[in-house]
């Protein structure tokens, strides 16, 4: 098919797969009067017949493309991360409700998911007799278990989908970044400055509107290299981590090979940044913790 042909050129009307593939993979420089040309070429009997064929082909092509895109492994990670967050958030909310309720029956009642698990296990010396409360506790424990299972799934899957990201960051953080960006390809296309503040959108937009300082870090705050750095230098650490993560995402998306040197480079850079504080802490305090640029 050359670039002046319609999607139906050289396509057998009785071959739905070929029709769908032509819609998905074909291209043309300019549109032409395809309905008339298709009838002329004998592909369709008349305009109506042609439009029936277009509908069949575009629907099949779009369905196939949607399925393919949605089943891609990074999409699975995105769903798993969001499901995990929903499960733990809900478990925590219900655990609060449970603690409120249980507290009215048993003055010794504890709080949180840990207490819910304890109740669900149903230790015999438990003063709590109300079955409805115990049933709620079981629900909370189940949700918390589900969140744990999802976390394990993410820890298992992320290294297969994004080996470098998973190596450089914790697999769950890597999956979270993919989820926030909307997919691995989207993350690979983001500049490191954007990756640095993913998850801090509220603060970022407040800054862009002009009434807040720029956020130093988003979700990458949970990276050990950022959290483990003195607050004075966290901006620098976040920038270094985001830079390496941006490279890792690109390698993962475009080549998929593991590059262990990334990890070593980041470790070295973080060491330099953290050493700064040990040497001249008075100095750093004096300039109000401004970033090093």
């Amino acid at each position, binding site marked *: *098919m050359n*670039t002046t*042909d*319609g*999607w139906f050129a050289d396509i057998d009307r009785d071959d739905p797969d070929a029709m769908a593939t*032509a*819609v998905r993979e*074909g*291209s*043309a*420089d*300019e*549109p*032409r*009067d*395809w*309905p008339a040309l298709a009838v002329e070429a004998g592909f369709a009997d008349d305009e109506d017949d042609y*439009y*029936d064929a*277009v*509908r069949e*082909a*575009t*629907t099949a*092509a*779009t*369905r196939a*493309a*949607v399925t393919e*895109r*949605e089943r891609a492994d990074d999409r699975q990670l995105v769903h798993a991360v969001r499901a995990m967050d929903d499960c733990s958030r809900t478990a925590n909310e219900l655990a609060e409700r449970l603690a409120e309720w249980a507290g009215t029956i048993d003055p010794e009642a504890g709080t949180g998911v840990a207490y819910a698990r304890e109740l669900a296990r149903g230790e015999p010396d438990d003063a709590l007799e109300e079955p409805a409360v115990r049933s709620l506790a079981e629900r909370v424990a189940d949700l918390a278990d589900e969140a744990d299972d999802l976390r394990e799934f993410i820890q298992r899957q992320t290294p297969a989908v994004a080996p470098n990201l998973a190596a450089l960051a914790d697999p769950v953080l890597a999956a979270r970044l993919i989820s926030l960006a909307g997919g691995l390809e989207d993350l690979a296309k983001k500049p490191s400055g954007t990756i640095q503040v993913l998850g801090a959108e509220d603060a970022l*937009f407040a800054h*862009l*509107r*002009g009434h807040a300082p720029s956020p130093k870090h988003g979700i990458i705050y949970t990276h050990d290299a950022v959290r483990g750095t003195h607050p004075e230098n966290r901006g620098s650490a976040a920038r270094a981590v985001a830079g390496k993560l941006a490279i890792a995402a690109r390698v993962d998306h475009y080549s998929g090979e593991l590059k262990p040197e990334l990890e070593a480079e980041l470790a070295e850079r973080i060491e330099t940044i953290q050493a700064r504080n040990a040497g001249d802490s008075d100095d750093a305090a004096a300039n109000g913790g401004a970033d090093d640029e």
Partner: protein
Amino acid sequence: MPRPTEVPTMSELPAGVERHTFDGTDRLATRGEPVYGEPTDGEWRAWNPNRSKLGAMLELEMDTGVTGGETALYLGAASGTTVSHVADFAGPTYAVEFAARPARDLLDAAESRPRLFPLLKDARTPETYAHVVESDVDVIVQDVATRGQARVALENRRFLADDGRLLLAVKARSEDVTREPAAVFADVREELSEGYEILETERLEAYHADHLGIVARPR
């Protein structure tokens, strides 16, 4: 019969779009299978201007020049909310959407509409669907939330008939969240003038914050 020229003619709704009463309120409606849980009155279903920029443009009585039965190209079809209404009153309707998740819902909307053609393509690269979408379509409806909305309209001008219409909803925040919408709209208008003559513009504020509706024809 001579027609009085002073009296402003209220822009007419396209054939196939009518006002019907739902729960006591008068609303725009088209005939077709419901798509997003909208109220129905017999075979008519309400067209919610708060969820559809084109619906808002019609509600604000912008002169779209659309009469019904047109061949249409819809850019940024999303889940099919608006494009399903377009397919109800227009002729063959090509619906371009870039994201997979909404395209899944678009397929559902297309199910009961034999002349609605879903395409999972990027409106910024018309070559990838010019082998399917025919030339000289009567109307292009554009509602893409991406930077460079004027560019998208210019790139897709190749599909539009010389006397066709571009119905464009510009989202200021997609261009630049930090700038005044009015300044963004001025830039979009200027860029759009490279290939289009702008016939009418109207802020869609009543239904959509920071959006501008534009009716234009190819230059």
